[in-house]
């Protein structure tokens, strides 16, 4: 440790040799197993607990991927298996497993996450939902990742759609949608407890118990928490941004009949993230939410869903500034098949966001209290042009918001399935990012009467016209490949405009940036053998933005974002025997242009050891290739480096 310069290189060589060894020596055995079916081996099945056995979908492999294969969008799925084998500790870490996302850790608690570029800690073109609840702060139209915690063991899957989802999901889904779906409580019966500790003072713990209260009525209660260690600051010292977070809740599921399903779930959290590494006072972030959902199947041809939630989130920045947001949302969705050709889906949504801040003398959102109303209607018709071969989907979302009034987000898609094993799709969509409070209501004063920065009532919605072409194929039963390409034309992207001469203040926000972005995403999943799964992808994004005539954007059309052009991901998950599991995730990100961040490769390795059916020991190493590295610089010239992490965990299932 005395010489930090020598350390990384030696470790790097060692780790890569290790990985190469794993891959090469298993290659020979894999060659044998290729020809056979990709079903779990008897040894593995026997090693599973009753609960785990009851969670295996009987027809999953073909049916689910069939649906995925036909989906006319660039959707990637992170499964529970993928998460478990990766050793991810938090939701944000699990999102690193999506080949079509840009995920960068800024410091111990802050993340920059986006799809198809425009990444920043304040990234605002991605819609994120946890079990149907939109996770979004109208403060900056983005996500506070430090409070989005779920018990990863109880996540069923994470769907990541890159590309606009505006017509179905609503505003903010300009560049992508993340859908985090947790298991039904009927699938989480029994006890699960996990405790972990490791380098850098980190500690994790979670506990869940589930069972059945009556016929068709199941429940789970859970709690989890973690403490994560320091990043390294610009001077090479521990940054003191270590932090902790706890959350807990319950979920009730009632399958009243074959036609009705009811869900009620609640989550409460409390955390003290400390992104500024303040010595005395970390941020206090707390919140709670409750969601109820009712699904009713009318017939094979029609069903509806009614969902309502309340979400309260509160954040004290400990400098006098606080944010309080209460969201009330109710939505209705109805699908029915009109005839053999048409399937109609429509939905209504109403949302109230009651947003209150406590302002500082010179830092303010005005008015301090604002009610934001949002109501929307969406309509989608899926038309089968040629039975099982050619589908045309047309959708439109009309949405009314408190800042800009009506917004329209249309979407048309064509899906051609020439053979059983492949689908070609194309889509043309428009999506918008409606103004957030930061665009309209934000003020920074030099003196109580002299604004330096001032929000602008003229700020309009940012928008994109997106043209996509994709190809999904499954050349073999155990191999699926997805290739999507996009050409996005952006307009009215946020610019920062200098004020009137002579002092050029107040600085305001405007829509002075336009341009295009294009790229492609290649992703594949390869089940080499029943016990060995490989998945990964390559993503290329190129942005060409420019300042519109009349604008004097002080950011020179950077759109405050910093994206890698090339990204690469490879995950290997192996169930080596009844007792041993081994997983590795290798990822690469090319350099970020401005602020400059060097390209980097990261390697995570997990070794799991099952003792009997109830006990599992894990050793996980994260960022093994380097002692420390920078992933994203949010406030240059200061930056933080993420440290290598090693932890051991013990998990108990009963």
């Amino acid at each position, binding site marked *: 440790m005395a010489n930090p310069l020598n350390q990384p290189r030696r470790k790097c060589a060692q780790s890569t040799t290790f990985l190469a060894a*794993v891959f090469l020596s298993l290659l020979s*055995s894999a060659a044998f197993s290729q020809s056979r079916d990709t079903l*779990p081996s008897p*040894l593995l099945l026997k090693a599973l607990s009753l609960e785990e056995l009851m969670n295996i979908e*009987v027809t999953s492999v073909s049916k689910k991927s069939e649906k995925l294969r036909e989906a006319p969008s660039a959707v990637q799925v992170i499964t529970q298996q993928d998460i478990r084998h990766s050793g991810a500790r938090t939701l944000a870490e699990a999102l690193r497993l999506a080949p079509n996302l840009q995920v960068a850790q800024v410091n111990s608690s802050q993340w920059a996450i986006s799809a198809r570029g425009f990444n920043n800690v304040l990234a605002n073109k991605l819609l994120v939902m946890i079990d149907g609840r939109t996770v979004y702060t109208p403060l900056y139209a983005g996500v506070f990742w430090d409070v989005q915690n779920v018990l990863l063991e109880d996540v069923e899957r994470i769907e990541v759609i890159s590309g606009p989802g505006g017509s179905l999901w609503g505003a903010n889904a300009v560049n992508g949608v993340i859908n985090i779906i947790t298991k039904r409580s009927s699938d989480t019966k029994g006890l699960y407890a996990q405790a972990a500790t490791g380098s850098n003072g980190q500690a994790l713990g979670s506990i869940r118990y589930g069972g059945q209260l009556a016929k068709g009525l199941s429940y789970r209660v859970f709690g989890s928490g973690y403490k994560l260690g320091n990043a390294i600051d610009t001077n090479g010292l521990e940054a003191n941004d270590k932090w902790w977070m706890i959350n807990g809740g319950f979920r009730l599921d009632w399958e009243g009949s074959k036609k009705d399903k009811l869900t009620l779930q609640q989550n409460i959290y409390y955390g003290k993230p400390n992104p500024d590494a303040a010595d005395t006072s970390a941020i206090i972030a707390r919140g709670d939410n409750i969601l109820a959902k009712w699904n009713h199947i009318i017939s094979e041809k029609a069903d509806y869903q009614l969902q309502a939630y309340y979400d309260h989130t509160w954040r004290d920045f400990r400098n006098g500034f606080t944010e309080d947001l209460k969201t009330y949302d109710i939505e209705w969705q109805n699908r029915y098949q009109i005839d053999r050709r048409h399937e109609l889906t429509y939905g209504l949504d109403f949302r109230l966001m009651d947003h209150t801040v406590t302002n500082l003398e010179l830092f303010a959102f005005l008015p301090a209290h604002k009610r934001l109303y949002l109501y929307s209607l969406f309509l989608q018709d899926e038309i089968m042009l040629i039975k099982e071969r050619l589908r045309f989907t047309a959708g439109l979302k009309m949405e009314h918001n408190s800042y800009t009034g009506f917004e329209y987000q249309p979407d048309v898609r064509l899906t051609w399935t020439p053979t059983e094993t492949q689908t070609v799709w194309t889509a043309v969509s428009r999506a918008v990012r409606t103004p957030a409070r930061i665009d309209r209501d934000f003020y920074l004063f030099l003196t109580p009467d002299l604004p330096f920065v001032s929000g602008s009532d003229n700020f309009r919605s940012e928008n994109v016209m997106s043209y996509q072409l994709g190809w999904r194929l499954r050349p073999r039963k155990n191999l699926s490949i997805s290739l999507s390409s996009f050409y996005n034309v952006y307009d009215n992207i946020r610019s920062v405009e200098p004020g009137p001469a002579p002092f050029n203040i107040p600085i305001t926000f405007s829509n002075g940036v336009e341009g295009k972005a294009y790229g492609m995403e290649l992703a594949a999943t390869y089940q080499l053998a029943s016990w060995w799964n490989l998945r990964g992808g390559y993503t290329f994004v190129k942005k060409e933005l420019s300042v519109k005539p009349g604008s004097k954007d002080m950011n020179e059309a950077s759109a405050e974002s910093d994206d890698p052009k090339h990204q690469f991901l490879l995950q290997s998950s192996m169930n080596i025997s009844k007792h041993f599991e081994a997983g590795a995730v290798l990822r690469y990100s090319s350099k970020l242009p401005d602020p400059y961040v060097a390209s980097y490769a990261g390697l995570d390795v997990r070794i799991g050891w099952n003792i009997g059916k109830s006990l599992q020991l894990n050793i996980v190493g994260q960022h093994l290739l380097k002692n420390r590295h920078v992933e994203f610089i949010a406030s240059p010239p200061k930056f933080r480096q993420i440290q290598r992490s090693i932890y051991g965990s013990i998990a108990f299932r*009963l």
Partner: protein
Amino acid sequence: MKKLIKNIWICRYRIAIWLLFSQSSVLAQSTPELEYQLKAVFLFNFTQFTEWPADSFHSDSEPLVIGIVGENPFGAYLESIVSGEMKGGHPVVVKYYKDEEDAGTCHVLFFHIKDPQRRKEIIEGATDKNILTVSDDAAFLKEGGMVRFFTSSNKIKFQISLNACKKARLELSSKLLRVADIIEPPEIK
């Protein structure tokens, strides 16, 4: 550190080779659908989570028999699952019966039989002989059966009738009962 990695690695390599051999021998035979693979594993699990009365075994080393009557949906898969497995000193084995009259000596009995009269007779006979009866038939528990597999949300689940188990003097572990749906059909006269 290096040494540790090396050791782990050698150990794993051995396992991988061994796994390959054990798997290929199973594959030489036809493998059933995943549904029946899972059910086979459940049947094996049932042997581990059930306590039989002492008099169902004549000696300490007598095998614990999983019997299949009628059509066998498992192929040879069930055998590969139980091979080498024990239950309290009793090796677990699989036997196939053409005729249910021969099935009196088994401990777990799986069957799928269409004729309700015949089904009823098997259930009654098995209950008297402390046999855990398992089936997929929809009416199985109503007819006095003990464990019934069903599929819900594309996953294999099972229902258990505790009364029926009690009649056969079988004790099921709470681990098994917790994940099962407990169904008590009205008594049949």
